[in-house]
């Protein structure tokens, strides 16, 4: 290779390497983002016909009781994810981190395996497990605790959300545990020794050594969990048989978007919903990161 060609390729290599990302970003991220802002001002009936309505989509959205229900459900789910799931994951990680445990790999695999299954397949499995009278859950609960065997889970508006939370607990506790476990294992042992020398018991050690040390991971996991919760769609959609459940009990914001955009066919309205969701998520993530004092992500 000639020396000038060599220099050229050295100089331009990085541009070539990131080119695929840039091109795809421009086409499949930037363009749709901008287009979706534009689309949100129209009512559409498929890609061919559009009618300009200005802010009407947003007005309708704001006053639609179904949307309110969707927001409520999604927030409820997000709160449960952060305040139920994460402590459980941490607890599990703490258990597994103990020096006394043998066969850590086995436990790790068992705790993680639910996550491998994927939302759709978990939904199919659990839709059968939740069947009243004959399904696994009711039969076990009835045998162990004597609860009514024909309790309806997915057919009862009040139990749909708890059922969803339970299912996602099952799916994600192991996943988040992995992060916590890795963080726990990289905590400096000397900090613990120093604390012990100072006379701190296990609880004090946990509060003053463990928690601060895993702080950045905890924040990362929390933000990830929150963003993920707001995007909840497949799990309830498949579990509730491609519907939003009784009295919209399982309706999430993304499901609402999907129904209006891709079942009824109004892509304009779907864009309006999408943007509202994005704004919401961004605001909440920013608040979260501010609160925990980690605005910057590494360089």
């Amino acid at each position, binding site marked *: 290779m000639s020396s000038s060609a060599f220099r050229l390729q050295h100089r331009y290599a990085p541009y070539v390497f990131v080119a695929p990302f840039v091109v795809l970003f421009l086409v499949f991220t930037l363009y749709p983002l901008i287009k979706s802002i534009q689309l949100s001002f129209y009512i559409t009936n498929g890609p*061919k016909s559009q009618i300009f309505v200005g802010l009407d989509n947003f007005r309708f959205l704001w006053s639609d009781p*179904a949307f309110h229900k969707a927001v409520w459900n999604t927030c409820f789910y997000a709160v449960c994810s952060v305040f139920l799931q994460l402590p459980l994951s941490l607890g599990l990680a703490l258990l597994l981190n103990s020096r006394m445990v043998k066969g850590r790999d086995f436990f790790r695999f068992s705790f993680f395996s639910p996550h491998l299954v994927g939302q759709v397949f978990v939904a199919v499995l659990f839709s059968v497990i939740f069947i*009243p*009278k*004959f399904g696994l859950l009711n039969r076990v609960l009835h045998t162990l605790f004597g609860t*009514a065997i*024909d309790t309806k889970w997915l057919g009862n*508006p*009040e139990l749909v959300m708890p059922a969803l939370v339970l299912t996602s607990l099952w799916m994600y506790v192991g996943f988040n545990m992995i992060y916590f476990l890795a963080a726990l294992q990289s905590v400096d042992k000397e900090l613990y020794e120093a604390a012990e020398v100072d006379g701190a018991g296990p609880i004090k050690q946990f509060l003053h050594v463990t928690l601060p040390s895993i702080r950045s991971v905890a924040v990362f996991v929390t933000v990830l969990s929150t963003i993920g919760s707001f995007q909840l769609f497949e799990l309830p959609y498949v579990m509730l048989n491609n519907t939003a459940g009784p*009295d919209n009990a399982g309706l999430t914001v993304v499901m609402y978007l999907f129904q209006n955009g891709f079942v009824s066919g109004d892509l304009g309205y779907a864009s309006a919903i999408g943007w509202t969701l994005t704004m919401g998520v961004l605001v909440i993530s920013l608040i979260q990161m501010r609160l925990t004092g980690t605005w910057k992500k590494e360089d």
Partner: protein
Amino acid sequence: MADRSFADWLPFGKAPTLILVITLLAGVYLAVNPVKKSQATMRLWTFASNHSVPYQKAVPSFEANNPGTKLDVQLVHGDAVNSRLRAAFWADLDVPDLVEVEISRAGSFFRGPPDDVGFIDLVPILKKTGYYDRIVKTRYAPYTSRGKIYGLPHDVHPVVLAYRRDLFEELGIDVDAIKTWEDFVRIGREVTIPGERYLMELSDNNASSFEMFLFQRDGGYFDAEGQLIMDNELALETLLFFIPLVAGPERIGSDLGSGRVFTQAVEQGYFMSYICPDWRSKVTETDIPRMAGKMALMPLPAVEEGGRRTSTWGGTMLGITRACPNPELAWKVAEHLYFNKAELAERFRATNILPPLKDAWEHPAFDEARPYWSGQKLGRIYANLADDVPPQYASPLIETAKTKMAGVISASAVYYRENGDDGFEAFARERLSAAAEEVRRYIRRNPY
């Protein structure tokens, strides 16, 4: 560099290499089995296998009678028919010539100016060929919009109650003495043991059970002019009547699910009876073979003595699309599949579905005694009720209305469970109007 191990030749490592191999294999398979572009002259889409199977059987005879044509009957899964059809109408991609659409979805295709509707108006040809009067007239209603009929009705779907004759006899219930719902509910309260035995399968979380009652009383979601009537006094009365049947201490019905679960429920006597339109009787025969000879059918109890003893559940239409280049040929297909009396008799034996063509019911097949149903003449039972089947009126928003109604039912059931009759009427009225108002908002918003 001579002693590189084999693994070093795979720059990305073993996992990606494995994936590469699998992808290549899959790719080869797909290349060799591409999605076939249909070569047919006439293409028909349907969404139910109990339709597609008999149609495919009828294809050879059609092609024999119309040489040079090739008829392709394609089974497209339920929801996909609607999204594919919609996508096809929008994009002019791949529109079939004939499509079967389910009753609750049909209305959404009639949206917009009449010229935009993707189906052709069948009134002229129905009148010209004389079929118009030979079909049960109320069955045009769900597929009619602004005076144009966009679909041929596939069925009538009269509803009766299927019940465990042996259990009824054991418990001393005299079926002939049940004339009205009052009689039925009274018996229900005596025999129902929640968690163990319900007199009837009834749902408290979707609208299908409720609709049966509503239609029986001449109620509905929309009236003949397309006005929303889901929150009128009749609907409210029906709601007030219905909810205590599925919620609260005096309930007589519950629901579980379908398929295997339902089979077990019926076999164990968990449900002693259930709403049975004609198609469901065949599902019963297929799914619950062990109850052969123990089941029977009875007309619905009437609301008032002497009143209507049936209702309706479900339906399918066959539409000819505007994009079809040869509507005359398409009509021949429709005629062959829907109006061929000998085929209809066979189809009835195979599916129990009563065709809407009245003179077809003269065929002896409809008077055959059925051992599964304790020797009853299933065909005649349904045929006798056919003229009484109440109409349902179409609207683009019928699906929305149904969903909102399901919400009202769920919420009312929850309220009733917690509060009983206390304040129930006010709650139900308010919830029902709120739901109707939501539908009206959609109507107002939609320029189409």
